[in-house]
């Protein structure tokens, strides 16, 4: 299953790199067009912003994998190992439940904005707003993956 491991290891990473490049290129093009070609782009800001939103939510999933979400850990470090293990599980379960709520409400929100399109590119909002439930689902899956690994023994992540 090495192809699966490849996807597992790199899926968010490649996506995020691509989105970062889109953000850089469009934002820079906006500057160049205004100064060098003296023509204002009307779609560049929108595209950069939407790439950013997608990038942000995909990164949220990626940050679970790399354990980079910002937490306050010093109290945990003072507790005995068993208590700590228990609290970690509780906090991850709360986190997972919250992700499910985000998926549900995120999809609910799509229904809400289904007729709206962005002002200049006329992209339907639903393509932009899908980023949130997708990111939340990704976080949920990565947390679940860590939870499974934790109980199988061994390291709970990267």
């Amino acid at each position, binding site marked *: 299953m090495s192809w699966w491991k490849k996807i597992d290891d790199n899926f968010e*990473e490649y996506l*995020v*790199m691509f*989105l*970062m*490049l889109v*953000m*850089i290129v469009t*934002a*820079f093009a*906006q*500057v160049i067009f205004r*100064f060098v070609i003296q023509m204002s782009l009307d779609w560049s*800001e929108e595209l*950069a*912003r939407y790439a*950013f*939103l997608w*990038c*942000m*939510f*995909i*990164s*949220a999933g*990626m*940050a679970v994998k*790399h354990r*980079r*979400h*910002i*937490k*306050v*850990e*010093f*109290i*945990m470090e003072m507790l005995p190992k068993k208590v700590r293990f228990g*609290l*970690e599980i*509780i*906090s991850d379960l*709360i*986190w997972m439940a*919250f992700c499910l*709520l*985000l998926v549900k*409400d*995120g999809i*609910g*929100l799509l229904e*809400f904005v289904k007729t709206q399109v962005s002002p200049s590119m006329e992209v339907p909002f639903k393509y*932009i*707003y899908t980023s*949130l439930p997708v990111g939340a689902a990704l976080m949920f899956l990565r947390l679940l993956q860590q939870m499974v690994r934790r109980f199988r023994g061994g390291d709970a992540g990267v």
Partner: protein
Amino acid sequence: MSEAGMVAAILLGGFSVLFLIGVPIAISLGVATVLALMYLGTPTMELVQGAMIASDSFPFLAVPFFILAGQLMETGGLSRRLIGVAAALMGHVTGGLAMVTIMACAFFAAISGSGPATTAAIGSIMIPAMLKRGYTKEFAGAVSSSGGTLGILIPPSIPMVVYGIVGNVSITDMFLAGIIPGFVVAFTFMTTAWLISRKNGFHGTGEPFSVVKFLKALNEAKAALMAPLIILGGIYGGIFTPTEAAVVAVVYGMLCGFFIYRELKLSDVPRMLMETAMITGSVMIIIGFATAFGRLMTMYQIPQMVATWMQGVTNDRFLLLMIINVFLLFVGMFMETVAQIIILTPLFMPMANKLGIDPIQLGIVFVINCELGFLTPPVGVNLFVASNIAKVSIERLSKAVIPFILALFFSVAVISYFPEISLWLPKFLKSLR
């Protein structure tokens, strides 16, 4: 209890309990908001809607761009050239290398908007250099972690971008306002380092100051020194917005790294893009939920309640700012800087407004307190960075950094007392237009 009181209790109580048991800050804010919405019987969809609207903002793109630009310039050899200039200027005085470190941090701060990144960029070169010359590990680490805090006070600055958006203050004005306080803080740091060096007999390089060497270093570093001119000059000149300036900095950093100094490799870039996305993602998700959290607080007039309550305590601007300072010093020990700004700005702003404190001065005071947060254990990120480079324990480093924390606290007191230190420059430049 009144409805507003209940909402306040659920939001603040829920958030505190959750983040203390190790739930990530962003999720704690989100869950607390959901609980409050449920108590009120409002659809929880309001949370995702609020988070989405808050995150969909072009100014926020400055955050990843400035992070990436800093990384490119560090790897691309700019930091080393800036150190060369600082060394030619300050190397010969007592505690020379410590002075060089702080000055180089101040230079690097003018292209970087992050504290830990500045510590890493300068510290990774200067700490080994200081150790070689017989400085103690503790002192070398303390100087680098304190100097690194200038990263967020001297523009560009990521916390200032966030404060500007959350507090509805011009980011350009915030950047301008940070310059003079940046000098003040750099000066008090250097004085502190000088006093400690004199006491411990840390000498300078022994080579006298030479104009030729200085000019040579300047020439070597000219591409690096151009960076702040392009970034800041472009913003103040009204040529581009802070976000555009940030993307220009990214492209400029690539040009320097690939073509001028040729120290950057194409294979470095994917890692940097990923790292930048990860830092941005973990911060932006806090911003999204914190905004929804803050909106609920504002809707129930909780900041106004705090403001009224504070008015019973004091009506003096300086005293209020000092109370805010002590409070932030305490909170900063436990909370990440950007999170601190997003959560507390809406809480403090009405209070400051009532007493006529300029939001820009309040912002500068906030940012300096974030600097303190970088230096105070248990979650002082600059300490972690420096302790890794200097191979010294956090405990010992935390002790060595105390004089610098005092120096910084002294600076923030002075800057709180004299609003003009922050406000003069933006006002002056406005009067020129």
